[in-house]
């Protein structure tokens, strides 16, 4: 088991390293970073000055290694626009996005898992068809549309929820739903199919044969097994949500790193963009690692090998 953990850890580090290279190249080789940062209407002299200051004239490898060195020491550079240390800005905005992500995932799990279990217990009935229909509908609705729809219904029409800002937990309700529902179809389907399989298994038959209460059979002996792949999926979905937060945060004016990314892209604030790409990629890689480890811990069969 320890060997497995170490191997996965090493792989994760490698992935993060290579991803950082790819991200760096993408940012620095897309057009001219100096011209982008200097902005429209900047003179050639201005652009040259920016290039000089930020060292964009150096070979790309040197730029990368320099950046990498700084990052490994905890220095993410300076925001050109905000005139602040990037690390500080990120630390400021991170909690909002983290909260949004967790809330969104919680919403998705709270909705999909019970629905998946119910659908598996009564296949081809009303609840099953409803669950599957919900999944299909969920996949067809883009998050920005859903967000606008929620805003209209709850923010404008019924006026019971705020449509922007992030000062209280109420502000997170609509954004969480808008961000989280997209993971719902996948989680629901996986739970449903996993439950349907496990309910046919021999050990569930044994549990029933010993007169255990239906709740025990379904949850302790059924869901306990079916949920294992769902954990991995949930972690991966959380990673996707971090990437999708940019849209939701922009619509709801939540000051998280997604919104920061959006603002920085518009302002061509290279250092910030770079840092955010790294942070999100790292978060995704770590989440995937956690998912695999949780999988191994929960699945008794993997423990054996």
């Amino acid at each position, binding site marked *: 088991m320890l060997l497995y953990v170490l191997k996965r850890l090493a792989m994760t580090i490698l*992935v993060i390293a*290579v991803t950082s290279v790819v991200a760096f190249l993408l940012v620095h080789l897309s057009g001219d970073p100096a011209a982008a940062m200097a902005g429209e209407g900047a003179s050639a002299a201005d652009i040259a000055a920016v290039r000089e200051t930020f060292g964009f004239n150096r070979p790309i490898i040197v730029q990368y290694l320099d950046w990498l060195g700084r990052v490994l020491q905890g220095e993410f550079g300076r925001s050109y626009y905000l005139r602040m240390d990037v690390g500080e800005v990120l630390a400021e905005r991170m909690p909002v996005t983290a909260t949004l992500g967790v809330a969104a995932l919680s919403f998705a799990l709270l909705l999909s898992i019970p629905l998946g279990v119910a659908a598996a217990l009564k296949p081809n009935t009303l609840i099953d068809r409803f669950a599957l229909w919900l999944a299909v509908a969920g996949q*067809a609705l883009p998050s920005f*549309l859903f967000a*606008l*729809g929620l805003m209209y219904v709850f923010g404008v029409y019924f006026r019971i929820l705020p449509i922007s800002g992030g000062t209280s937990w109420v502000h997170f309700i609509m954004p969480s739903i808008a961000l989280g529902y997209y993971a719902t179809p996948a989680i629901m389907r996986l739970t449903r199919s996993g439950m349907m399989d496990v309910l046919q298994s021999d050990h569930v038959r044994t549990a029933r044969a010993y007169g255990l209460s239906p709740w025990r059979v379904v949850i302790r002996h059924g869901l306990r097994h079916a949920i294992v792949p769902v954990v991995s999926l949930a972690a991966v979905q959380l990673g996707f949500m971090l990437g999708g937060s*940019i849209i939701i945060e922009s619509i709801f004016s939540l000051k998280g790193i997604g919104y920061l*990314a959006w603002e920085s892209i518009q302002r061509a604030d290279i250092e910030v963009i770079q840092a955010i790409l790294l942070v999100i*990629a790292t978060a995704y890689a770590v989440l995937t690692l956690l998912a695999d480890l949780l999988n191994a811990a929960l699945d008794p069969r993997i423990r054996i090998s």
Partner: protein
Amino acid sequence: MATVFKQPPPKMTLSPARVALRRAARHGSFWVGGTILAVIILAAIFAPLLSAHDPALQDLSQRYIPPVWSEDGSWEHILGTDNLGRDYLARLLYGARVSLLIGFLTILISGTIGTVLGVAAGYWGGWADLIINFVVTIRLTLPVVLVALVVVALVGSSLTLLILVIGLLLWDRFAIVVRSATQQLAQREFVTAARTIGSSTPRILFREILPNITGPLIVVASIELAHAILLEAALSFLGLGVQPPQVSWGLMVAEAKSQLLFRPWMIAVPGAALVLLIFAINLVGDAVRDVTTPEGKA
């Protein structure tokens, strides 16, 4: 004995493709999805015939005319006009063109990349598989929306770039599914048989492997088509996708965002079109999947 050969060969039994098509035809969702999709495609193709208006023509004297079903609406502008007086129906129809065009072109690119990688990984295994798996992992670790936004913002927005960026980003699922399908096929007898009779590798790939992965390939293509169209809509919504004077449904929603309070139909119309298109694609994809999965086969 010679007389046997003089007779015409017996009628060929239906190929798996024909069987699949027949079974798809009986699938309700195939028809619903297919019809909606066909309608949208035809509407896009025949846009100039369906609306006499130019989608980019601004007429500030005709701003914010509501659709025909409300009080001040008129048949002149069936779906009303937007903030710059442009006919909404025309914009909707031409927007369909953009969505479909971008969608199909991007999956052509991502499908090719993904299939090539997937077949290589699944057929040769070993190092090729390891490396390609690693590449896929890297791709998955990068947040798609963010990367697309960054590249488009820094390079400059054009339709070609948009198609390239999305196409170069959405190949991961293709690779994964094709790899898995190829792995299963590569172990089967007819591939071993082909190798035994000395077929060259490209021949095997083209004649044995590729025809047999079309099922899963179509299913993934439908998923990724929907994904590409949604991504373009999201990018356009954020202002970094399709640029005016070109039309995109995502762009229409963005421009109508400020009207959420007073004129929600301006958001609802392109929104509904988008949802309908994705829904139809998903239905068709689901039908193809149900028809081509092994348990479903007779």
